């Protein structure tokens, strides 16, 4: 009884009876007791490291030395700037033009309806800013302070952009093939899902050898088709492809499961209605299935992007970032900067850059998923 009233009080009413006051402090006590173990660990191991990273990023912080020198924004300058950096209109022209076009398109509806949301303003401004920033490039005899940072950023984005649609698409196709709960579909789902549970080092163990030109099964399997053995991981043109193939094989099952769950939520009567209208398979897929699993599709994309930004294990074990820097990714750059080159301060700065990048993705995710939620 007391609890019920306490709840009501805690909710809205502002005038407190003595008993309610007591219940309130009791609730506070219990609330704290229940969340304390989690919150303490959360503060120490999740939030505090971010603060610590910010602090470290302002220092020349040696991994093995006792010297820590405050260098202000030095690490950021090293990361983002270079020698003889110039700005020109034409550098990466088409990409930047594309960004500006998107920004203009985003303004289209607001101009028509004469109202604009804060979100959209931010988005448009961000796109314009990005289009401006991308104009910077090393001028004559100039170079970036840390070209590996840009290379690994580029590789990370490339990996993300290529692997995400493949993984999402293949997952969806598999889920569609298994749709309908036929006999045995559960077994097939298990088969496709199986690789996902393997530890990363087992996946790399399998694939490093599977792809090997001399010992690998793949070269042998392709032999009858007249394909010469390819040294996938050592060839600069194929190394990233090999990493992506490995990743797809490893993780697609996870997305298959998500899609399968999503497909079950699609209202069956919609299919029937579509059938009555004489819709073919493709038509049904486009007008019933796709809208029905929109939220899962988005979710898969976002999860995949977040996971891809943090790709590390398969690259570190299979190629070590090579050949050259062809497969070097951001987390690996952080790892090497910190643990091979001793520079923890600079490594922290790159970590924070990655954090910021992912924050942007998360914000977009929140925005879209939030929208989906209110639907």
């Amino acid at each position, binding site marked *: 009884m007391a609890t019920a009233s306490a709840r009501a009080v805690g909710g809205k009413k502002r005038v407190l009876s003595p008993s309610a006051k007591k219940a309130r402090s009791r609730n506070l006590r219990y609330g704290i007791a229940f969340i304390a173990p989690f919150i303490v660990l959360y*503060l*120490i191991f999740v*939030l*505090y490291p*971010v*603060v*610590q990273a910010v*602090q470290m990023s302002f220092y020349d*912080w*040696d*991994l*093995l*030395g*006792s010297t*820590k020198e405050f260098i202000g924004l030095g690490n950021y300058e090293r990361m983002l700037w270079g*020698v003889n950096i110039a700005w020109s209109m034409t550098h990466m022209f088409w990409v930047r033009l594309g960004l500006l076009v998107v920004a203009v398109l985003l303004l289209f509806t607001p101009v028509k309806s004469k109202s604009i949301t804060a979100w959209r303003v931010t988005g448009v401004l961000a796109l314009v800013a990005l289009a401006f920033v991308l104009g910077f490039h090393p001028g004559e*005899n100039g*170079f970036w302070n840390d*070209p*590996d940072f840009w290379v690994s950023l580029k590789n990370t984005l490339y990996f993300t952009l290529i692997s995400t649609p493949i993984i999402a698409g293949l997952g969806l196709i598999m889920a569609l093939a298994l749709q309908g709960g036929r006999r045995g579909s559960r077994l097939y789902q298990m088969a496709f899902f199986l690789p996902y549970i393997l530890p990363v080092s087992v996946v790399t163990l399998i694939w490093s050898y599977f792809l*090997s*030109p*001399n*010992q690998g099964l793949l070269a042998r399997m392709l032999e009858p088709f007249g394909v010469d053995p390819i*040294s996938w*991981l*050592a*060839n*600069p043109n194929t*190394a990233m492809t090999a990493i992506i193939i490995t990743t797809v094989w490893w993780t697609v099952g996870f997305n298959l499961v998500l899609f399968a769950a999503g497909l079950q939520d699609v209202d069956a009567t919609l299919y029937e209605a579509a059938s009555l209208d004489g819709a073919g398979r493709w038509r049904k897929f486009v007008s019933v299935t796709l809208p029905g699993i929109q939220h899962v599709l988005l979710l898969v994309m976002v999860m995949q992007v977040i996971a891809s930004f943090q790709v590390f294990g398969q690259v570190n074990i299979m*190629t*070590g*970032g*090579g*050949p*050259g*820097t*062809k497969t070097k990714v951001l987390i690996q750059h952080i*790892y*090497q900067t910190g*643990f*091979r*080159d*001793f520079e*923890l301060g600079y490594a922290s700065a790159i970590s924070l850059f990655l954090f910021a990048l992912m924050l942007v993705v998360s914000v977009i995710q929140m925005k879209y998923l939030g929208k989906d939620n209110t639907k």
Partner: protein
Amino acid sequence: MRKMKALATTASLAAAAMLLAACGGGTSGAPEGGSPEGNKDLNAAIKAVTADELKGTTITMSRMFGDCEETTQGVTDTAKATSECEAIQILTNKFNAENEFGIKIERLGGSDWNSYYDAFNASIAGGEPADVANLHDYALSDYAKRGQLLSFNPADFGIEMSDATAQAQKSVQYDGSTYAVPFDSHALLWHVNTDILEQAGYMKDGKPVSPTSPEEFLQMAKDVKEKTGKYIMSVGVANDDMLWRTFFTFVAQQGGALLNEDGSANVNSAEAKKALEFINQLIEGEYIHTNADYAGSIDEWKNEKSAILANGTWAVNEYAATSTFGYTVVDFPTVFNQSAAWASSHMWVMPTQKDNDPVQYRAAIEFAKYLYNNTDTWSLATGHFSPRVSVINSDAYLNAPLRSNYTETALKNITFVPQVDNWTAIKSLIHTQLEEVWFNGKAIDAALTEAQSRVEQQTK
């Protein structure tokens, strides 16, 4: 409204975490053993450790050379070693079984040389480095200057440093103190499939005919390709240093160097340009290719798709024992006007420990000394050069199979990488630009110019 609230919360939490940060303090610095003042007493204490105190001490070791426990478990007969890994593992087993103090060695981790340093650094920074570890000559300064290695007087412990070659004696020093015990030196060689060279007409009196100029090298490559259809040379390029070492060798063979005497950058030189142009000619003629890593280059050569493998001294015994075709080894050919071949060396160091326990240090030094006293075993089992004059001049060494084929390298050609501060970083800057040339077709001049500016920036 809710959003505002959440923002406010995040801010206040961040503030709280800041407070925590302020209390947290800094990370650990270097242990006292690294500082010169504390060192004298410590050295005396280490020297004073008695055999009794050493009884039953267990120390940890971290090393490269890989894992091979399956084939070496319980083996103490060094004659059974067929590879670098087996040789060091069997030597360790032997020490465990035979040392008079009953010291036991435990291995800390396993890795190849590529990822070895990452793990080694993490172990130091984590506060628990191994008691004894191996390093390359060029990496010594990185740790010595940070006070992470124990300096000691070899004579105190009966380590006959005077028997070491001049280069070896120099290589274990930093700033006038000794930080390591030498173990070997190793250089780039040509591992030859004599069957293929025979077919190509490049064998005379049972020995490979080495080119003596770039033109001869190209002609030989062409002949090998036309007569046998094979590559002249397999070389590790992806995630491997073999082509970099070849470049280093070619520069040195022209009397060039990548750093001047004073340590300043000399990357953008005529010699470097010529070396790169020559390597490009080999690549463009499809006499060598850049699509192999270390393992891939070995596989290719072992599967008889190439005549020669560019690899180091460390593989001589292994290939002699396992090759399924006619095998021999020769000096890396001198194609420019001076003899030179890339070289480096391995050594053993004692990382400083937090507790500075003299007994542990002493046990580690005893093990390092044992390894130094067994460099003959190591070099005979692998193909490395011993750092000890007495070994190099011994009959057993001189009569060992194939060694006479590369005495030139041992005596004359051997050209060590510069032992300067941050060589790893400098090398990486240059190597990156070379990879731009090999993988992305960057113009040689542009690559060398950029490498020059970058190294200048680094050495400034």
